């Protein structure tokens, strides 16, 4: 009887546990149920297209460095150069896993209007354009154009195979281990210094290029051909300040293309390197000053002194060929830090620095610690470095009248201003560049970012600075507002702006 009870009890126990076991198994999700549906879905997904983008309201207040005096166009030292909206559409497509298409087109309406009748200055289709300024601003309000503008930021096609990727079209190419206001090895594409946005990456200008990459054993070999040189976009103020009379660009010919190659990769888990070379044009122009005029004789008793008197000053900007090797290193230091090096040498045709009006070659480096601790929601990079001028030529003494007069001919001017514009006033310049980003609150809703670069001469007397701090607050999915400030004074140009951008991304 007792053994019977025990047997029944054991069976009950087994039964109960069996019930519990099958119950929890029965509660499992059944991937099989959706399998057929998923298969069908996958088939549909072989070729996909998606449309994304954002609509954004913009507001910028800035201090106008040209000023109100002598300026019929601008009436106040403070202005609102950007009030309006931006609509960006991004069309993306994938064909199986072998081809990819991306296009980003931006439409902007600026109620403040913009002076655009010198658009060809910057337009890649312009090969040689002249726009004249005088020392007094000679544009007026009728030149302000308020029509919406359409800009193609990027449009490219990717073709993939197992170890090769090929991207062709207008694209943004970023090189190097560090990023920020100064990144010496990031030399391939130019910058747009006219951008009035908190999003630093919008300062990058896409270039038309063919970009072939080979991937092998954790290494990458990249070969780039840029048939159409695109220079850096200069702010109007900068051009105005210098009394620039023309900007000439290389003509669209095969011989004027740019070529770049870079080998980069990982050696073990702790060491990264990048060796690059660009044969292209300097993105920032050189200056050629022409002083057509005649010699006039000044008589001092019996003695007659012929003095060259310029009738007019032409300041032409043009672009020089450069050869730019680059170097990047990234060395992991423990779990949290890595040490970065980014360097370039910019060799111009005036390697020996014999011609004052052509930039001398330079060697630039930045090095410092970086913590990309994304999981700590902080990105921090702090780099110190120098820019050395090879075969540095000191500027001549402008206060010496004999020296001044002796150099006044058709091809030379006192070069202090020119060297200042080149950033080559000193044999070397100290640089301190940093980048910090930190997220706060639930959902990383609040983001603070600051990018900065400080420059000073060897005696630390005069400082140039570029500082971009901003806050970004995300209200909910895709809705965010950014408020930032630009404080910059570099090479004689300054920019002070407050920028607000409220965006809905879709």
């Amino acid at each position: 009887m007792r053994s019977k009870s025990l047997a029944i009890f054991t069976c009950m126990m087994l039964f109960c546990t069996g019930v519990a076991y099958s119950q929890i198994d029965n509660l499992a999700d059944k991937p099989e149920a959706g399998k057929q549906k998923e298969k069908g879905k996958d088939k549909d997904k072989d070729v996909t297209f998606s449309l994304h983008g954002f609509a954004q309201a913009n507001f910028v207040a800035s201090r106008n460095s040209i000023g109100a005096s002598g300026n019929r166009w601008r009436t106040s030292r403070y202005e609102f150069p950007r009030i309006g909206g931006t609509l960006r559409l991004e069309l993306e497509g994938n064909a199986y896993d072998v081809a990819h298409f991306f296009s980003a087109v931006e439409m902007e309406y600026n109620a403040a209007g913009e002076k655009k009748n010198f658009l060809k200055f910057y337009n890649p289709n312009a090969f040689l354009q002249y726009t004249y300024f005088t020392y007094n601003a000679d544009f007026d309000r009728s030149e302000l154009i308020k029509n919406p503008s359409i800009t193609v930021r990027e449009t490219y096609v990717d073709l993939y195979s197992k170890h090769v990727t090929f991207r062709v079209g207008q694209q943004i190419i970023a090189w190097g281990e560090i990023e920020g206001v100064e990144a010496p090895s990031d030399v391939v594409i130019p910058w747009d210094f006219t951008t009035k946005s908190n999003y630093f990456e919008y300062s990058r200008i896409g270039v038309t290029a063919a970009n072939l990459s080979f991937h092998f054993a954790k290494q990458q070999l990249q070969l780039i051909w840029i048939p159409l040189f695109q220079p850096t976009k200069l702010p109007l103020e900068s051009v105005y300040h210098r009394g620039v009379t023309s900007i000439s660009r290389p003509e669209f010919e095969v011989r004027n293309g740019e070529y770049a190659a870079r080998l980069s990769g990982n050696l073990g888990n702790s060491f990264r390197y990048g060796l690059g070379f660009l044969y292209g044009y300097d993105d920032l122009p050189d200056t050629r000053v022409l002083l057509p005029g005649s010699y006039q004789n000044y008589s001092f008793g019996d003695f007659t002194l012929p003095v060259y008197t310029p009738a007019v000053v032409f300041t032409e900007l043009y672009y020089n060929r450069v050869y730019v090797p680059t170097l990047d290193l990234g060395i992991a230091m423990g779990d949290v830090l890595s040490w970065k090096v980014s360097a370039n040498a910019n060799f111009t045709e005036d390697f020996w620095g014999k011609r004052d009006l052509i930039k001398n070659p330079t060697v630039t480096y930045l090095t410092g610690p970086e913590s990309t601790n994304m999981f700590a929601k902080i990105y921090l990079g702090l780099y110190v470095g120098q820019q050395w001028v090879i075969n540095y030529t000191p500027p001549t003494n402008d206060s010496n009248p004999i020296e001044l007069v002796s150099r006044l001919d058709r091809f030379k001017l006192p070069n202090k201003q020119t060297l200042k514009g080149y950033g080559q006033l000193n044999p070397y310049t100290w640089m301190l560049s940093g980048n910090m980003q930190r997220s706060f609150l639930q959902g990383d809703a609040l983001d603070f970012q600051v990018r900065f670069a400080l420059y000073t001469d060897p005696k630390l007397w005069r400082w140039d600075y570029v500082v971009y701090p901003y806050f970004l607050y995300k209200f909910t999915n895709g809705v965010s507002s950014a408020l930032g400030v630009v404080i910059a004074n570099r090479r004689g140009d300054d920019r002070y702006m407050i920028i607000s951008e409220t965006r809905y991304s879709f």
Partner: protein
Amino acid sequence: MGFLKIFLSILFVFTASLAALPETAVEMGTRLAKMNDDRPVFERVKARINLIINNSSGEVRFTKVLIMAAYTENMNSPVNYCERYITYFMAPADDQGNAYLSYHYKNQSDVKWAYLKGIRRAKKVTGADKKLSFFGSDFTNGEMGKPNFLEWKYKYLGDDKVTFRGNVFDCYMIESLPKTQSIMNENGCGRRVSYVEKKTLLTLRLDYYDENLTKIKEMRLVSFTTKNNINGQKVYYETGLEMRNLKTGTRTELRFSDVKVESEANIRTDIFTEQYLIQKWW
């Protein structure tokens, strides 16, 4: 001779009595935690992950959608074992295009890469603060992966019942305490109590306590799936978790959908490289 016999008999009885002694709570807790840690896994998984972040009023504040592929290399070797993950952000729109790659090794530091579309660069991510929140959610980075079994000491606290999808299940209550102060500080956690379902060893509920041993969070299993892995072992795979923050009143749901495993996942093993951070692999 007689003495030896007596000695051997005593030894035998003593050893047998030792073996027959019931397990201590610590031994049992450690054994159960080890069994939980050794649960079979899939070699390949592909899934869509929804991270739904709710505010204290219960409203959805952010939804992040990722597509994820995972590959466990050398899954039968406890020494060379390496979990590889690659994820691509599908939503929200301002995160779309960002991608993330990580190698989680058993015996060495993790290796992680992030591609941020804004800066157009794949960056090596150094450091992983385990106690900070995972993409702004109520989960911490440390809670997203398997905790290191050797860093914690365990104790069986007894049995309890936990409700899962309207059914009540018997569970082992296992307490985990950090072995050192630094482990506690690193994880921001002074105590965990897991409710492990007795048959499947699925953790149905997990309570988190802060460094002052105050209960701060409660995680519950919302859903799971089960299938055999390539070795023919039955795998219980969590596909839905919910974390409630008792301090802030916020809540995050982590939901896997379109889960495909092993051959169905159709994942190539060479996609876990920097190259595929910017290239379609799914």
